[in-house]
């Protein structure tokens, strides 16, 4: 088991109970979608995996090792993260943005001068090629379209060859058509380099199209956990009845289709 989460709880200072006892295990190579509306706790769940949020109870095990402040740096070397708003450094080129993914293993003096080794740059260019942006390597990212920015975000997340990719609503800021191509890219890269992907989404149809498994979250609790092939929209709709939803079911909301 790559990841084992047991009894995870988190209440924020303002009293928001984001997670109320979450158990979840993820196998190596799985593409898991965590489905939930905003406020369901899915972002907190994702962030407690790589220690951006400190849970008050419960534990996260990565490769059978409990995550603590001592083991966290090791885990972070093994995880990449993709964000809803891309979180790129706008004034830097795509290549330099991707290279920031290697800062933890770079010589700190050299990287202060923006100097990277030839191997690191080739690695970054390969990642850009993988996301189809080799031609934009020296373009400033603020000159790129939303979809292209997210591709740079993905390239940055995969450059250190992570085992686990955490994607927090990677397509929420993109139009449905581009969303489809980003999800396809995440999936293909996952297959190609044997990456485990945990992806937060609120669009049911996208979740159904691209995931191996769907974990439904509502009010900080898991209400659904099943292989995607056993699920359909009707079933998910039924599960979420009475949970107040906020999920997007309608095809019209998200027209993305797989290739």
């Amino acid at each position, binding site marked *: 088991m790559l990841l084992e989460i047991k009894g995870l709880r988190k209440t924020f200072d303002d009293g928001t109970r984001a997670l109320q006892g979450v158990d979840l295990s993820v196998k190596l190579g799985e593409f898991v979608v965590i489905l939930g509306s905003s406020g369901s706790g899915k972002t907190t769940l994702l962030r407690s995996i790589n220690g951006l949020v400190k849970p008050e109870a419960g534990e996260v095990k990565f490769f059978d090792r409990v995550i603590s402040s001592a083991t966290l740096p090791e885990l972070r070397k093994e995880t990449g993260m993709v964000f809803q708003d891309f979180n790129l450094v706008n004034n830097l080129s795509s290549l330099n943005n991707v290279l920031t993914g290697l800062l933890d293993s770079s010589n700190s003096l050299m990287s202060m001068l*923006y100097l990277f080794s030839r191997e690191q740059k080739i690695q970054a*260019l*390969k990642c850009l090629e993988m996301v*189809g942006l*080799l*031609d934009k390597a020296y373009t400033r990212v603020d000159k790129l379209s939303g979809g292209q920015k997210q591709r740079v975000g993905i390239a940055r997340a995969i450059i250190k060859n992570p085992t686990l990719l955490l994607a927090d609503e990677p397509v929420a800021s993109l139009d449905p058509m*581009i969303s489809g*191509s980003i999800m396809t890219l995440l999936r293909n890269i996952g297959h190609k380099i044997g990456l485990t992907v945990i992806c937060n989404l609120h669009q049911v149809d996208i979740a159904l199209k691209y995931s191996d498994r769907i974990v439904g979250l509502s009010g900080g609790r898991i209400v659904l956990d099943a292989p995607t092939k056993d699920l359909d929209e009707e079933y998910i709709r039924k599960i979420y009845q009475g949970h107040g939803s906020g999920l997007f079911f309608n095809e019209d909301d998200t027209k993305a289709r797989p290739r």
Partner: protein
Amino acid sequence: MSSSNLKFFNSLIMAVAPGGDNLEGLDFQQLTSYLSNKIGIPVKLKYCKDYNEAMTMLSDGTAQIGWLGAYAYQKLESDNSPVVEFAVGVPKGKNVPFYRSKFIVRSDSNIQILEDVRNKTIALGDIYSTSGYEVPRRELLEVGINLQNEGSFKAISNVANHDEAIRSVIEGTVDVAPVSSINLELMIANRTINTKDFRIIHQSPNIPGAPLVYLRNLESNLKEQIKSLVLDAHNHIDVSGYGGHMDRYVDPVESHLEYIESYLRPQWTWRTIIGILAFIVIYTLIAIDLEVDISQLLSDSFLYMKDVLGRMWPPDFSNFGHLMRAMLETVEIAMLGTLLAITLSIPIGLLSARNIAPNYPIYLIARTITVFFRAIPEFIMAMILVIAIGFGAMPGVIALGFHTMGFLAKFYAESIEHVNDEPMKAIESMGASKWQVIAFSVVPQVIPSFIGNNLYILDRNIRMATMLGIVGAGGIGYELQSSFRMFEYPRVSAIIIVIFLTIFVIDMLSSYIRSKVL
């Protein structure tokens, strides 16, 4: 899958996916006969009707060698591929095994950019075609056109290969077609088409050339033999392949690395390096020209400095009350001067902001005013004013006010020019007048920098006001001047300490205000 040992093959089959419609565009004849001779068993060519057929032949082992087009190969790779790439052709006259997908239209077409192809008729290749379908799909997606959505086009014409797509465009049966640069260049070279007949409206990034593949589970000796024969073939025969004559075949892994390396650039461009060098040279020349000599500064001057400082100690605070009175006058001059500067610079600042100024002449006049008053030091201005209106605080106030007006107006104009104009447009679209737009979208955005700049100018004016007294414009500067003249160095040091403490207090005060307001 059939056995992979050479003993069990009495012939090898090479499955070729379609590229163009004449065999010259996709010619493996010489290569296969060369292989037949060297290996000692026939190597037969099988031209397939589409990519799918070629893939199937390789998947079930009917064919052992193949050419699939780059995309079809990727397809196989992702699904735990039964084949591996072993060679890729470098076209004649090129150094790299790459090509592009180009969107072409008739020369008389009104299509100018990729966005224009929406609702037009388009010719598309097989969905497994790289440059005829997959790459164009991605390129179109970038401009918001979904190839899979039939509503994006007036009609989609499915063509068998690139040559047919090119002909369809030139004959006018379709408006636009994405085609492989290899076929396009070949047809131009053959004079089948004329460059005047069509226009290229868009081209894709480089696409890696389609590799030759063989079955992964072929016996390794045989694989090694085929690979080394193909990579060496150009030394013995004229090699050809997709796109006609080839210069040579190269190892795809090596050529891919070379391709990636071709994108390497130094992190520091020559421009940056020249800039840094120019900076060093200019400052060295300045230092030489000004005869800056640090060693001299450290020897003689240091001794004189010590002497002067020694005479200043201890400070003489005997007339403390009088000093504080003069200091207060200085602060008052500065405050009044700053108020004058702010009042004057609000209108001038607005008019010298490019995005607010009603027209260019007014903008230019306002800019000239700000530059003019910045250019005259307040010292000079105060000297002239002292002559005109006599000793006292007034010349100081006016000199400070006008001089710093030049600065403030420039600062205001700059922050106004950098405001986000989207809210401006929104308020404008609601029907607000120009001044209402300024009041509701520009002012709130520039308030923080407005306050910050004013506090800076106040701070600066207090420091400058102390000096203005020297020319007779009132305040503590006058005291400083007269003490100096009388060689009362202990008094001079007392005045300096008073000025320092005042500025220190003002600085604390302004950072407090800043933290509360900004």
